């Protein structure tokens, strides 16, 4: 029996709507600065940010590196931190959801650490790791691990109880139930965590780069501030925004691919 996919085409209006909203936003922004409502020492208009963007592709001054180098540094830090938070957070959360011993051991510590904002770790991080890559990765790791643990934990907890009873009557072991029922049940929540953790990691990037850095998008923003150059600040912010959105989009595609495999 074939399972046919039904393709529904979105009407034209709905397809152009996103472009319209971005366009209107940029025009308003440009107008607000050019007309003088907001003085140009406080905010740079998009046209100026765009020309700076073109310049910064090849011009390392005044902050010491071209845009690609900043972006690459940030991506490296974010990805190592993100990867580590998935690697530790997801198994930990899954195990906490099913094994009472793991929950009893890990939950109290986790609940205590969870409310501490990641940037509060900066001073300790400097003591421990100095000001290199490791420290920044640590901050980002702390930020990303929280949603991974919570989502995986909740995902396992939402396993349908009758499924567990069914497996028990067949004589399944705890480990079998965990592997064959709880983990697949938790997958949609775990994939949700991929997105949330990425957002957490990326937003804490700037915080992590406050930790003495010499490249990185966060550093670009801080430098723009020190130099009194709103155009550099805005360029840094826009770069963080756009690259974050691109990453989010990539993870979203991956998630759809993977979830299609378990078809729910």
């Amino acid at each position: 029996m074939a399972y046919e996919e039904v393709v529904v085409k979105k009407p034209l209006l709905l397809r152009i709507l996103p472009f319209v909203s971005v366009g209107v936003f940029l025009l308003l922004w440009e107008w607000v600065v050019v007309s003088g409502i907001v003085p140009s020492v406080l905010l740079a208009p998009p046209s100026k940010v765009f020309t700076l963007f073109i310049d910064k592709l090849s011009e390392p001054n005044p902050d010491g590196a071209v845009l690609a180098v900043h972006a690459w540094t940030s991506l490296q830090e974010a990805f190592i931190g993100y990867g580590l938070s998935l690697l530790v957070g997801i198994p930990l959360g899954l195990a906490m959801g099913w094994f009472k011993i793991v929950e009893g051991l890990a939950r109290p510590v986790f609940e205590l650490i969870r409310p501490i904002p990641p940037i509060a770790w900066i001073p300790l991080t400097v003591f421990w790791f100095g000001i290199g890559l490791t420290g920044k990765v640590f901050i980002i790791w702390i930020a990303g691990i929280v949603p991974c643990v919570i989502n995986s934990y909740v995902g396992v907890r939402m396993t349908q109880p009758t499924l567990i009873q069914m497996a028990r009557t067949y004589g399944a072991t705890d480990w079998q139930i965990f592997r064959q029922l709880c983990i697949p049940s938790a997958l949609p929540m775990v994939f949700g965590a991929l997105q949330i953790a990425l957002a957490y990691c990326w937003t804490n990037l700037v915080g992590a780069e406050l930790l003495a850095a010499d490249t990185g998008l966060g550093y670009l923003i801080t430098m723009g501030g020190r130099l009194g150059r709103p155009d550099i600040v805005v360029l840094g912010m826009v770069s963080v925004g756009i690259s974050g959105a691109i990453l989010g989009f990539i993870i979203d595609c991956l998630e759809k691919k993977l979830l299609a495999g378990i078809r729910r």
Partner: protein
Amino acid sequence: MSTQASEDKIRVINLTKRFGDLTVLDGIAFTVRAKELVAIVGPTGCGKTTFLHTLSKLMPATDGRILIDGEEADPRRHNISYVFQEPTCLPWRTVRENVAYGMEIKGVPHQERMERTDRIMDLVGLSSCADLYPNQVSASMLQRIAVSRAFAVEPDLLLMDEPYGQLDVKLRYYLEDELVNLWRKLQSTVLFVTHNIEEAVYIAERILVLSNKPTRIKAEIPVDIPRPRNFLDPKFMDIRHQVTELIRWW
């Protein structure tokens, strides 16, 4: 041991379950012969689900014993199957993989597992949708998957908790026939709990009638009507009447 006792597959002795002060099961005792299909009926809220949960060892009994082939029942050692009221299919497995799931836990070798899966899916007409996922088949199909999975492990004891309770009447007749057919071909020992008296008389070889809480076995009625059974057969109607009288609370 008498010959009768040696034929007993399941022996339940003084099964008692209390929740604090509330006695739900009060010294239930009965035996089931090998390859017998026994229906259990009782008034609503008489603790049928508790009864099945203790029998299947999902819930510890307060007192009493459940013996399968003379040994204390144990889901790891014995083949116990349980068909729940609601469908229990794993949404990430295909229909075929769902039917095979019980055997997988039991550690049935791959080759044999595939053969038994194919055979049973043929019997219940699931073959055509073997590779679909549960969200692509109808509600009655879901319950047939659960029933097939339960029979496939060749259970020592197959417990069914009103598996067809939520389906419409016509489909029920059809599935009841299918169940009787499966049971005769695969020769399993089945305990079928229902609140539908007609269903009980239609499928069972023997009916155990439960009392109100604290639940005991109130009566035992053999159903020696040849199959296929007819709802309008005077004997059928007579037994149905007897059972109805036993559980009426109005």
